[in-house]
C-alpha cells in the first residue's frame, strides 16, 4: 500500500495523532458525562425531597397524635427512675420497640458517667414527653446524682429520644429541617445567642450583662464543629423549639418561629394510613408553634372548630377531698354548656362562639371566722361574633398569646379580648364549706 518508507512513517504519525485526539476527546466526553450524571442524580433527589417537605405554615394548625402516654416509676438500688410508656398505636411491633427503648434508656442513661453506684448518694432519672404531634414523639431525659452529702459535686446530663411513629425509627437532627435549610446558619445563630444568654451575669448595680465576650466565637465554632463531626445527636423538641445538648449538659435552643421555612417536623412525618387505635386522644387544631402545658390541669377541654373555640381548664390546688366532688359537678355543668354552644354553632354557621374559662380551686380561710373554706376562682367569659371577625381580629390575639410564653410557664389560657370586643373576662369567687359542700357567702 505504501511504497516508500517516508509514506509509511507519515501514515504512522497521522495514525498516532488521530489515536491521541480520539482518546483525548473520549476522556473529555467521559468526564463530562460522569459529572453530569452526578449533578442530575443529586438535583433529582433534592427536587423530590423539596417538593414533599415544606416548612411551617405560621397561620396553620396541627394535631396532637392519639397516643396515650402513661407515667411510670421504677426504683433499683440507688436509682429512681420516672419515665413514660406509650400505647394506642395500631402497630404493636413499633409500639413495643419504642417502649422497650424508652425503658432501657431511662434505666441506663446515667451509666455514661456513673460507672459505680457506690460513688454516688443516689441517682434521679426523669424522662418526660415534650412533643406528641404529627406522627412523632419527643422525650427529654435527664439525670442528676449527688456525689456525696457533703459536697456540691454532681453528675448530670441531658438526652433526647425522638421517634417517627410511622416506622418506629429515631429522628435525627437533620430530619428536623427541610432539605434546603441552611442548618449551619441556624445552629450558629442559635448557639451564639444561647451561649451569650448563658454567660450573662448580674452586676452589683443589678443589671444583667455579658462581661466577657472573648470566647464566644470559639464556643460557637466548637458547637458547629461538633455538628459537622456528627456529635450533636442529643436533642428533643416541642411544637415551638428544638433543644440541643452539647459538651455534656450544655444546651442550646432553636426557636422554630425564627426559621419557620426550614423546620420540617410538622410536615415530614405524614402517613397515608391512620396509625392509631382511637382518634380522640390528642388535642386537635392547635395553632402551629404553640404548646399547651396542661399537665398541671385537673380538667382541660380544647376544641377549635369551624365556628366555635372552646378552651376551659380547671386547676385544683386544694387538698380537700370534697373539692373533688365539687369539681366533678363543675365539669358536668361545663360539659352541658359546651354542648349548648356546639348546638348553637351548628344552627348558626355564620356566627362564631367562644367559651373560655379558667377555674382555680384552692383552700383558704375566712379571715373573720378563721373557718377553713374551699375557694373557686373562676375567670373567663363567652363571646359571640361573626366568623370573619374571629379570623381577622380574635384569632391573632389567641395565637400571639399562645406563642409568647415559654414551655415552663403555667398559664390559665384565658384570653383578654376587651380591647377588641369591649367585653372583659369576668372574675368571680365562690366559697364552699370543706366538709358539707355548702356554699358560703362572704
Amino acid at each position, binding site marked *: 500500500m505504501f511504497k516508500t518508507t517516508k509514506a509509511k512513517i507519515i501514515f504512522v504519525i497521522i495514525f498516532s495523532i488521530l489515536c491521541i485526539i480520539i482518546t483525548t476527546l*473520549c476522556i473529555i466526553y*467521559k468526564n463530562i458525562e460522569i459529572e453530569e450524571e452526578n449533578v442530575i442524580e443529586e438535583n433529582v433527589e433534592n427536587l423530590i425531597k423539596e417538593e414533599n417537605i415544606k416548612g411551617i405554615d405560621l397561620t396553620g394548625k396541627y394535631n396532637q397524635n392519639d397516643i396515650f402516654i402513661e407515667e411510670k416509676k421504677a426504683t433499683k438500688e440507688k436509682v429512681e427512675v420516672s419515665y413514660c410508656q406509650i400505647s394506642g398505636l395500631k402497630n404493636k411491633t413499633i409500639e413495643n420497640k419504642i417502649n422497650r427503648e424508652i425503658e432501657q434508656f431511662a434505666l441506663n442513661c446515667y451509666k455514661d458517667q456513673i460507672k459505680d453506684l457506690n460513688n454516688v448518694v443516689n441517682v434521679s432519672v426523669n424522662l418526660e414527653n415534650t412533643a406528641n404531634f404529627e406522627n412523632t414523639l419527643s422525650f427529654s431525659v435527664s439525670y442528676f446524682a449527688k456525689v456525696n452529702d457533703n459536697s456540691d459535686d454532681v453528675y448530670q446530663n441531658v438526652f433526647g429520644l425522638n421517634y417517627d411513629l410511622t416506622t418506629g425509627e429515631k429522628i435525627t437532627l437533620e430530619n428536623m429541617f427541610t432539605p434546603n435549610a441552611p442548618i449551619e446558619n441556624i445552629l450558629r445563630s442559635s448557639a451564639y445567642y444561647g451561649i451569650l*444568654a448563658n454567660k450573662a451575669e448580674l452586676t452589683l448595680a443589678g443589671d*444583667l*450583662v455579658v462581661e466577657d465576650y472573648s470566647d464566644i466565637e470559639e464556643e460557637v465554632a466548637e458547637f458547629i464543629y461538633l455538628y459537622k463531626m456528627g456529635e450533636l445527636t442529643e436533642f428533643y423538641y416541642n411544637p415551638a423549639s428544638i433543644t440541643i445538648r452539647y459538651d455534656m449538659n450544655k444546651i442550646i435552643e432553636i426557636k422554630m418561629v425564627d426559621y419557620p421555612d426550614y423546620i420540617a417536623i410538622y410536615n415530614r412525618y405524614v402517613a397515608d394510613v391512620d396509625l392509631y387505635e382511637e382518634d380522640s386522644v390528642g388535642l386537635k387544631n392547635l395553632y402551629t408553634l404553640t404548646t399547651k402545658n396542661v399537665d398541671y390541669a385537673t380538667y382541660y377541654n380544647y376544641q377549635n372548630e369551624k365556628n366555635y373555640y372552646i378552651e376551659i381548664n380547671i386547676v385544683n390546688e386544694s387538698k380537700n377531698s370534697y373539692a373533688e366532688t365539687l369539681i366533678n359537678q363543675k365539669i358536668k355543668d361545663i360539659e352541658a354548656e359546651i354542648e349548648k354552644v356546639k348546638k348553637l354553632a351548628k344552627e348558626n354557621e355564620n356566627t362564631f362562639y367562644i367559651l373560655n374559662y379558667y377555674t382555680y380551686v384552692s383552700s383558704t380561710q375566712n379571715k373573720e371566722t378563721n373557718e377553713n373554706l374551699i375557694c373557686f376562682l373562676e375567670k373567663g367569659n363567652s363571646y359571640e361574633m361573626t366568623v370573619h371577625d374571629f379570623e381577622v381580629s380574635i384569632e391573632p390575639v389567641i395565637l400571639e398569646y399562645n406563642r409568647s410564653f415559654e414551655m415552663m410557664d403555667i398559664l390559665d389560657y384565658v384570653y383578654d379580648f376587651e380591647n377588641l370586643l369591649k367585653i372583659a373576662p369576668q372574675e368571680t369567687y365562690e366559697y364552699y364549706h370543706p366538709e358539707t359542700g355548702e356554699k358560703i357567702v362572704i
Partner: protein
Amino acid sequence: MNNNRIVNVLLIIIMILVVIACIIGYMYFTQEKVEIDNTEAIFTLENYPRIDGSTATLPLAEAFKADFTGTNLEEVEVNHSKTHNAYVNLINGDTDLILVTYPSEDEQKLAKESGVELEIVPIVKEAFVFLVNKDNPVEDLTLEQIQEIYTGEIKNWKEVGGENSKILAYQRPENSGSQSGMLSLVMQGKEMMEPITENVISGMTEIIDVISDYDNSKEAIGYSYYYYATTMYTSDTIKLLGVNGVKPTYDNIKNGLYNIQTAYYAVIRKDEPQDSDVRKLVNAMISERGQNVAKEAGYVQND
C-alpha cells in the same frame, strides 16, 4: 528488502504502543482517583507532644496527629481549651505546643511575668474576610469603602454599586477574635460606629442586650476569619467579598494577593531543647508533608 521488513515491524510496534498508551491514558484519566497514603508515622501516640489550642485549629491539630502518628482521623483524640486557656496552659507547662492566633498583649504580658519566652512559628495562613448574602449584587469593596461602612459614613448599598437599600453592618462582640482582627487589620485606628444590638432572654425572664449576630439578610454585611466563614456558614447562602479587586480564594490567600492576612501559629516555649519531640513536631508541621496535611484539612498552606 530486509531493511524494509524491519521498518515495517518497527512501525507496527510503534502503532501498537500508541494504541496501548491511549488505552492506558483513557483508563487513567476517567477512573476515580484514589489517594494512597504511604507516608510513614514519625511519632507514636505515646511520644506525641501534648497539644492545645483554639477551636479554629482543632481540625488542624487532629489532622497533624493522625498523619504523623499513622492513626485514623476518626480515632485521634485532641482537646483544645480555646485560645487564652491554651496560652495559660503553655506558660504553666501544662502543654507542650499550642496552635493559636498571635498572642494578645495580655498573653504576652502573662508570659513575661512568668519568665517564659515564647517561640512563635507561623503554620498556616489565615485571612480576614467580609461576607454578604449570595444574592447581594456587590462583589467587591475597597478597603476604604469597608472602613467607611463601619465608621457609618457609607449607609446605603447603592453608594458602593449595590441596590438602593440600607446597609446592615454587623459587628462582632468586643474582645472576640474577629472584632480584634477587624480593629487591627481593617479599621487601623478609625473608630467604628455603634454596633447593632438585640435583646435576648437569659434564663426564664431576664432580658440582656447583646451584639447582634450576622443574619445573612440581603442588606447585611459581616466579617470573620476565612476558616470560620467557610466552616460555620452554610456555604451556598453566603458570598465572600473581594477587597480591592481580589477575592479571598484559597490561591489568592496562599500567594498573598488577598492581603488582609494573619496566620495560625505553633507556639512553644523557647527553652525547648533543639532535639526535643516538640521541635520535631513543629518542623513536621512546616514541612511539605505537614503543609499538605494542613491543606487537606481545609487550611491555607504557608509559603
